[in-house]
């Protein structure tokens, strides 16, 4: 069973989002997602300063096995990206909720996070994935 921290919000497309104290949102992919992808070998991140709509294609993660699009969980502007992933994409496998984060957004409306799944709702998505 994969790790699903209770303090995060989730999208059914397997991104996690964390509302930071300063009102920004950090985004990465879940433990379930990294496990299904296998060894991550490349992450294409958005450019800082770019605006994205909720559910817009914002990044690409490639494992040895497959390429997957990453969608923006809320609409907003990219204010930081995780440069570590450029040289060490395996960080996504090793620490998906920590050092393996992808990017940080300044959301248009932090309230938009309410529309995302909680840990319980996401656990159901994962359970259905297994079948």
């Amino acid at each position, binding site marked *: 069973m994969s790790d699903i921290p209770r303090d995060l919000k989730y999208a059914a497309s397997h991104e996690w989002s964390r509302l930071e104290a300063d009102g920004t949102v950090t985004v990465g992919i879940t433990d379930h997602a990294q*496990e299904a992808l*296998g060894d991550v*070998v*490349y992450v294409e991140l958005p450019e800082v300063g770019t605006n994205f709509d909720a559910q817009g294609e914002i990044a690409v993660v*490639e494992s*040895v096995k497959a*390429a997957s699009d990453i969608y923006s969980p809320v609409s907003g502007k990219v204010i930081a990206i995780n440069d570590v992933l450029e040289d060490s994409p*395996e960080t996504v496998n090793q620490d998906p909720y920590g050092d393996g984060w992808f990017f940080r957004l300044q959301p248009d409306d932090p309230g938009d996070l309410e529309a995302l799944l909680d840990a319980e709702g996401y656990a159901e998505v994962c359970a259905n994935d297994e079948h």
Partner: protein
Amino acid sequence: MTLRTPLHDAHVAAGARMVPFGGWDMPLHYGSQIVEHQAVRSSAGVFDVSHMTIIDIDGRQARAFLETLVANDVGKLEAPGQALYGALLNAEGGILDDLTVYRTEQGYRAIVNASTRDKVLAWFATNRRSGADWRERKDLANLAVQGPEAVARVTELCNLPALAQLPAFNALAHGEWMIGRTGYTGEDGVEIMLPAAESVSLFGRLLAAGVQAAGLAARDTLRLEAGLNLYGQDMTEANHPYESRIGWTVALEPANRNFIGRTSLESLRKHYTRKLTGMIFTGKGVVRHDFKVRTQVGEGVVTSGVFSPTLECSIALVRVPREAKGDCEVEIRGKWLPARLVQPPFVKKGLVVTR
């Protein structure tokens, strides 16, 4: 109903992620396919290849039967233990499957793919010959132990000193076991066919001796680095051996051996227009099956593409115009990016042989 090999529970116990493959439930990886890949390149790994089909062929017409079906010449196998790689062709020269044929004391043993089992057995039946009998050996498991330390580990564990002297592409019989110095990784190693009941214990002893359990995902990156084709992907019935980099397995001599596909191949070998070759992409991203390729002399397609753990970039097998070479372009998510055609293999015995 998904088929299970005798090692299914052992895989699960070893932490495998199991996936459906050719009708079988098989280990994809045991945590990290890159770690498994590197273990095979640097020390030793063990793959369960029991899903592959083992067919024993005997009878006084066994040789004539195989001489008709296999494009390579089984007549070259003079003594028990010798083996060759070849293809089964249809009359048009299209590849029905690739296989390894061993000469045995009783006749021959053919190892064909799991995904082509039904087709091959039907082809045997269509082309049956009185005096040649075959039976599928579902009672056997098959473990591939591969890597520079593989032979030493198996020699010690199984107390088989003769193994160290066994030449490549030869096999030795040991009771109910048959051990071939063969593989699909570009490394030294063996493939051990043994009674299913004994396979769990051997697998456990190999793991205890430090041999890394390796899954289908590592098998795919290893074979592609080694420039070895995967049937159904790099070659199908729509391809003939000359455009699939296995023209060397077609034995047109002796001229009087009338194997199926021969007539077609005799003309194809003079006129074929495409080839299978290698491609390296050093940019960001991974090239995958069916991606489009543009060369200086026309278009082509990626037949297999992976991230190569040894080269640390994407490598591929591509089918392109026969004259194509050097710089090319590959389409990745709508963008045409520069790549380069190279002669496979990419890696041989742990070393990068192409850049």
